[in-house]
């Protein structure tokens, strides 16, 4: 980074005064928007002492909420990792009618507001929904129950793995696989021993993004969980209900825990992105 900045710091280099003014302004904005609010959250959460913070985090409701969030994240991540891997292969390796359209449709969940995503799922899988009425007739409940939470989380995270795996798979090409096949390796063996190791950083990055988004999804879950008292709560619903029902201590405490997890994931993402970029460069050179 420093090498590139010295290489470029030439023609548009304004006077040092302008340079430091710009750096100062960006730092100030960054602090006002991101840094100070994050610190304020942590301070508010522990303002009642570490004991009450611990008490709020370890309450049975909080533990149940975090447990459900982990479970929902786990199922959604597994589903979208399998789909993402498979669909990346379809998009990169196959030719068929409507491929460009299918490629665009994967990105749709990015354009859908979480609230609207929830509404859509209620319309399809709700008690009177298109598919929901058949499922309910069979005695199963999707929306207003935990499968609805899984479904909503899966919907909003559909694009992540596909978007990260497609470019690395395209970069990887077919040559090495063909060598492995020529040497007598079967389809599975080639996939496990040759293809998967080559796309692993891109895949890991996509999975991390999926996990981060799943842990934090809120709007879609709010809609599909319904407005029932004592409803099944995930961590984000627990935070929202804590504020609504005037128990801000538990909401702030749970927020700090979720924010902590997302910072850990963020560090993971930064590390993975460096690996992915390093790979891309080594392929190009």
């Amino acid at each position, binding site marked *: 980074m420093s090498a590139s900045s010295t290489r470029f710091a030439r023609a548009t280099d304004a006077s040092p005064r*302008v340079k430091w003014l710009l750096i100062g302004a960006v730092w100030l904005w960054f602090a006002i928007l991101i840094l100070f609010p994050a610190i304020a959250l942590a301070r508010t959460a522990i303002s009642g002492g570490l004991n009450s913070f611990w008490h709020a985090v370890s309450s049975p409701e909080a533990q149940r909420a975090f447990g459900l969030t982990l479970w929902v994240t786990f199922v959604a991540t597994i589903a979208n990792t399998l789909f993402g891997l498979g669909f990346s292969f379809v998009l990169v390796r196959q030719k068929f009618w409507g491929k460009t359209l299918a490629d665009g449709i994967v990105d749709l969940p990015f354009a859908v507001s979480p609230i*609207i995503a929830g509404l859509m799922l209620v319309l*399809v899988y709700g008690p009177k929904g298109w598919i929901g009425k058949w499922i309910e007739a069979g005695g199963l409940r999707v929306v207003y129950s935990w499968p609805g939470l899984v479904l909503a989380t899966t*919907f909003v995270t559909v694009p992540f793995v596909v978007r990260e795996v497609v470019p690395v798979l395209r970069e990887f090409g077919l040559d090495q696989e063909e060598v492995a096949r020529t040497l007598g390796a079967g389809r599975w063996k080639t996939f496990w021993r040759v293809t998967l190791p080559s796309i692993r950083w891109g895949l890991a990055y996509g999975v991390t993004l999926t996990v981060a988004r799943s842990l*934090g999804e809120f709007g879609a879950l709010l809609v599909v969980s319904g407005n029932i008292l004592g409803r099944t709560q995930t961590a984000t619903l627990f935070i929202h209900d804590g504020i609504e029902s005037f128990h801000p201590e538990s909401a702030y405490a749970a927020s700090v825990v979720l*924010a902590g997890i997302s910072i850990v994931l*963020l560090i993971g993402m930064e590390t993975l992105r460096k690996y992915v970029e390093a790979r891309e460069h080594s392929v190009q050179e």
Partner: protein
Amino acid sequence: MAKIATSPVSLALRGTTLTYLGIMVILPLVALVTEAVTPGRQEFVAKLTDPFAWHALKLTFATAFVMVGINSVIGTATAWVLVRYDFPGKGLMNALVDLPFAVPTVVTGLMLVALYGPSSTLGAILNSNGLAVIYQPPGIVLALLFVSYPFVVRSVMPVLQEIDPAEEEAAKTLGARPWTIFRRVTFPTLWPAILTGTAMAFSRALGEFGSVVMVAGNRPLETKTGPMYVFGEIESGNRIGAMVVSTVLLGLSLAILVGLNALQRRPETRK
């Protein structure tokens, strides 16, 4: 290629993944649009021009426009500083710029309330000077600024890194001043990336809910945005109103994404 594409395993993979996509994504979308237009055009227009719905949509657009105006400038400045300068805390800033993408939206909302809300010291000072942010429209803009901060930065940074210094050098040799060089040489290369980041931020702002609901105060005709209106209508059983506003918001987000795709495809074909 052809051999792989027609093998039974490949066909099965294609069938399974396309079915998954159909059930997970296409069916819900079709359901929403179908149900929204079923009552007829008059009903659609009536629900859309309902004063509460119309105000919520207007508020969403107004706040999104203000946010985009600020973020396109500050995002570009942030990318510029991160690519071209070395300064204390650069590593920290570079890592934390992505924080808004990682932090859950409800947590974002709570962070802003914790710092600027009426029960904090700073919030109390702001309130007593008539500059209340939280539970007012500026709070909505603040939340949108937070959640969409990385879009412009991350879209502009790679372009700035790839820029050929020779052009800027040439302009300098010809006697152009730094600001003129930026305006006439650098900016024409940068603007597609700025536009891309801005459009993505705008699309995100149209749908943002979690952070906004925590800071907005949810007062109809004052601080209730489009997505909040949709949620309120679902809760009170007015599904058609919710579906109509949803369809409009979704249609706009989609149009932005499709437009961006068209914009990004152009330079690729030039290569």
